[in-house]
């Protein structure tokens, strides 16, 4: 068994209302030094050892993200 992490983030040109809301809140909380926040999704998959990265990429492409608006990265832990 292996743990694979897929992080899905909105493409940089796409509006991220969630991140904006957080920046706004940090401002109101008086926290300084944070200039931008982007919020994405984080998936932790437990996969059999024989599951290769390209299989995970396919899952990420079709199910975990919409390539029209999102990018993803895959990492093994």
């Amino acid at each position, binding site marked *: 068994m292996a743990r694979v992490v897929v992080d899905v983030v909105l493409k940089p*040109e796409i509006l991220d209302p969630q991140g904006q809301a957080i920046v706004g809140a940090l401002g109101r909380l008086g926290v300084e030094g944070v200039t931008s926040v982007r919020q994405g999704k984080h998936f932790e998959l437990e996969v059999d050892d024989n599951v290769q990265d390209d299989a995970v990429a396919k899952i990420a492409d079709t199910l975990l993200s919409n390539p029209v608006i999102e990018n993803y990265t895959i990492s093994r832990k």
Partner: protein
Amino acid sequence: MNVDTVENAERTPEQPQPFAELGLAEDEYARIREILGRRPTSSELAIYSVMWSEHCSYKSSRLHLKQFGEKVPKTDTLLVGMGENAGVVDAGDGWAVTFKIESHNHPSYVEPYQGAATGVGGIVRDILTMGARPVAVMDSLRFGGLDAPDTRRVLPGVVAGVGGYGNCLGLPNIGGEVYFDDSYLGNPLVNALCVGVMRTDGIKLAKADGPGNLVVLFGARTGGDGIGGASVLASATFDETGPAKRPSVQVGDPFAEKVLIECCLEIFAADLVVGIQDLGAAGLSCATTELAAAGAGGMDVDLDRAPLRDASLVPEEILMSESQERMMAVVTPENLDGFLAICAKWDVLATVIGTVTDSGRLRMRWHGETIVDLPPRTAALEGPLYRRPVERPLDQDALNEHDGHALPRPRDAAGLRDTLLRLIASANLADKSWVTDQYDRFVLGNTVLAQPEDAGMIRLDESTNRGLAISVDGNGRYTRLEPYVGAQLALAEAYRNVATTGARPLAVTNCLNFGSPEDPAVMWQFTEAVRGLADGCLALGTPVTGGNVSFYNQTGTTPILPTPVIGVLGVIDDVTRRTPQGFTTDGALIYLLGDTRDEFGGSEWAHVVHGYLGGLPPAVDLEREKLLADVLINCSRDGLIDSAHDLAEGGLAQALVESCLRGDSGARVVLPEGADAFVTLFSESPGRAIVSVPRSEEVRFTDMCTARGLPHVRIGVVDVLDARLAVHFGSDAFDVPLRELRRAWTSTLPAHFD
């Protein structure tokens, strides 16, 4: 970055420009050069390309839509007619109501959640722009077959998007439609309607009047959203576009819009704007040219003042960006501080970006240089106009001749019972609560009727109980068979649905979803449907107040079923008099109003049982619709009936089942003597409704129908305690327990989407 300035354009007249890639035809480009007396700058080209796109200029449809203005019925209820962001109707007591429906079909296919969400967001801003508080939304949805894998991707996303945005705005969703047909598989239809309310003296118009007044851009920052969306995404088919070339779509921020709504309403209440326009398709290009064209005629804009989300955007992109949740207002210098203070209160970014002028030119500067200098009317109002070729489809005659009269029909009790159960469980007739339970229908506390009632109803005024009712309807199969009649059937159904609740239908909005206007057969469907709708509105006395055309809904060369979706708005003096759909009064008598004929062309029965489409749609009689509506409205006013439900797809059987289940009451039905049981139960003849009449009112009720000449026949009685629907015909009968009906009717959608 080299910016193309007016000066540069004059110096380099022969520089080649990508007009074709931007969707402009060669002669259109030539006309731009003629208007300007030089080649356009790339920013001007951006403006013309989006403003002259099908989506914004209505170049293929305008010629035909004129009929809505020419055949306008005599009415004193219209406060603002076609041409503004939305029409406005006088609802009485100083109330004005504005409503409009708009499509967001292509984006919803590409990214279902965001496509549908921004569809709701866009129409709500249109309504807000009129000066109204948005008070409800509706959604008319069409998908590919229920079993198609892609429907599983598209439908849940669309529904979550409609709900996600509307719920977050705090607008009740009070009705809509969900249909399935294979023709929509690669082209789902997502049509969103919004209705808003204001005082009659609070109507706002989109014009930039008063030279010297300031142009304020407020709301969200401008980003690279849906650049080219207006012309590329909404006006050209994208079926050959591979994943890599997928157009970028817009992402909505409903919270930003909610805040923008409250901010605008406070600004309106303080009377701080001269004119206002929302930024939708074609964004800043559209808002600046339209405001200027409708007002003093000119505007100077400093484009670098527009707040950006992405600092790398170039002027062309800023002009075409479809970033959501933005508005543009024209404000007098004296009112600017007040305006900005309200924006600050709501944490809404507001920036003065320009001034109104009477120069007759829209001039934009970027880093001190002039990049746009054009007569705004030519972009906003004087776009190209096409008389597209029209030709009756080659297969139309064959389609109408093969009317399916030989399709085997059930005759005996068991066969009729099976057919009933099969139909109520079929995709288009099954319960839609899997969809509608994802929509908030309670918020704002004025929802008197919502789905699954025949029309949604909203209380306008707590002190007087004045209210409005709306229904949206469409039927692509009827329209395919005979577009002229199909459009009138959709109109008639929406009109009837409104009257069924007790409200008087007053005005119409419409969303015309068709294939490519470059296909003469599609153009025939379109022109016929428009003619039918215009004639129908004239006959019913309900003017068209606005709407939207969506072309290019096709996969390859195969168009969708031609689908005009019609919204009808009505007003009711006293919402406590509304007529609900469910049977609730024990012993009440069930009457069938109207005439039932053997009409199965385009019916659900032919579709579900035989997979058949042919013949002619049911005949429409608009005088009869008016009569039926009058009777239903009077019955509501005089308290003669306890329930009413219009008959449409699936016919009497469907209506009986829905009234039983809605009221959780049984019914004993005896079909009229000598009538064909199958035809009586399943025919889709329009102009009909079922009502339940308390015994004490039967005489008054039948007297009224007789006096007015409305056919009415008693077909049964409500039996609250006997939990089944029993149907007697001739010497035969069948019955179905409510439990079994409910299971059949409610299981279909959950089984596919849960």
